[in-house]
């Protein structure tokens, strides 16, 4: 269990992906320690290959650390029973760098996925998804499949899917990479509003420009290590 009030805690975390020939490959994350308080907003910055995505995946319980301890929303990822992880994941919203919209579903149904997994009524699903699509300006694209959306529209749909269930923790990996400046500002406003309502937010980006638009605590990663914290 989580020892303090931190929503996310890393203690000397190391992670390496399995090597093709067996065993572990080189360490992607090395001795990483951090604590993110409830309701905080954190930028995770660093160059490509610094380990930002792996750190987010550990926070999302999509990976387990190869050493050290990761605790998220009170669940210790390394030792938690496998059956305990789906409940945890439903409390976390994720925007993947590659978006991962389901190609055979409409925009509406993609955004509705977390609500349907949570077994919300269809009436409530319809209301909440419609509100979310309106907020991100995709209400007129509700029936379109991802292949019919532009890159920016796909990105907005992926963000809508991540936030529609009002998660306790939102993890976003380069969430504004494909949208124009106006849309990026609008999405940042959405994240800020969610943060104001209590959601803990971690956004990984290599864009210093984006960080400059929303001043918040920043964590700089390089070669799998945290080089510094700052605002």
């Amino acid at each position, binding site marked *: 269990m989580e020892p303090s009030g931190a929503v996310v805690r890393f203690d000397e975390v190391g992670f390496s992906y399995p090597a093709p020939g067996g065993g572990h490959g080189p360490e992607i994350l090395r001795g990483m320690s951090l604590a993110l308080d409830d309701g905080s907003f954190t930028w995770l910055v660093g160059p490509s290959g610094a380990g930002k995505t792996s750190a987010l995946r550990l926070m999302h319980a999509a990976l387990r650390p190869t050493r050290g301890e990761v605790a998220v929303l009170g669940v210790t990822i390394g030792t938690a029973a496998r059956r305990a992880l789906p409940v945890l994941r439903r409390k976390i919203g994720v925007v993947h760098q590659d978006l991962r919209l389901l190609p055979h579903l409409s925009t509406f149904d993609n955004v509705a996925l977390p609500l349907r997994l949570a077994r919300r009524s269809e009436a409530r699903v319809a209301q909440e998804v419609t509100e979310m699509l309106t907020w991100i300006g995709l209400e007129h694209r*509700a029936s379109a499949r991802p292949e019919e959306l532009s890159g920016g529209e796909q990105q907005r749909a992926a963000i809508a899917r991540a936030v529609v269930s009002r998660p306790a923790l939102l993890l976003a990996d380069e969430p504004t990479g494909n949208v124009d400046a106006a849309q990026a500002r609008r999405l940042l406003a959405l994240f800020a509003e969610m943060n104001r309502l209590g959601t803990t937010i971690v956004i990984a980006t290599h864009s210093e420009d984006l960080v400059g638009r929303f001043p918040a605590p920043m964590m700089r990663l390089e070669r799998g290590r945290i080089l510094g914290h700052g605002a």
Partner: protein
Amino acid sequence: MSNRSGRDPLGLRRAMSDRLLQALIAAMALLACLGFAAARGVDALGERWRLGAEAAVTIQVPDPTRTRIALALGVLATLPEVADANPVDPERLAELLRPWLGEQPNLTLPGVIEVQLRNLDADVALIGDRVAEAVPGAVTEAHGLWVGRLAALAAAVQGVAYAALLLVGLIAVAVVAVATRAALAARQESVAVLHQLGATDREIAGRFARRAMVLAVCGGVVGVVVAVPAFFLLARLAQPFGAEVTAESLAGLPWGSLPWRDIATVPLIAGAIGWVTAQSVVRVWLARMP
């Protein structure tokens, strides 16, 4: 906006081909129906042989005068093991032997008494001794040996039928497993997304299992429906061995003797195979994910 795909987030209606899987399961179901019918048919045949022949004993009475025949019948009537005893009509006996003996008016045939035993475990030798004491020269013949061989043959054929049913079941499992793995491969990314959104193994495996079950049940029903004309065709092929079967006498076929209860379970068994196999395949696959 929301449509049917909302209830099928993995798009299994497209990923799990309904035509091929249904057709293969239908073929398996047809074979299963034929297997059940064969097992039941051989069982009924064996039972008929056993009851018709094992319970029958023939007694040959040389010099078959009325007195000797009556004497033998009188002894048989006193034995509790004997249910019924009837002399074979000499003319019928001559008719039965004519193909082998030809016209032999001067040949004296022995009298034959057909005896039905009340108890299959009755001591036939003792019956023969009692009759021979009263009617010297009377010979009693039981049919136990060849009936035993026929019964063993029937049991062996029935065993083969059940082995074929088991094999059909195993092939059905393999077919569903291959179809499920193909669907998993086609929807690998979608399964990963649902998993990351917090879907449990039970929810994901359940979607595959329900799809496989529906397809298997439909295939099973198709197999059973196709089995009915197959039974009729087989009955026509078996015509030389039984009563005449024509299209006009369809209602006269031995439909009642078919194992309808077993056949009715074929779609249900197919559905169960589909559900359990898909669940197992998907859960094994999901176990590799964190």
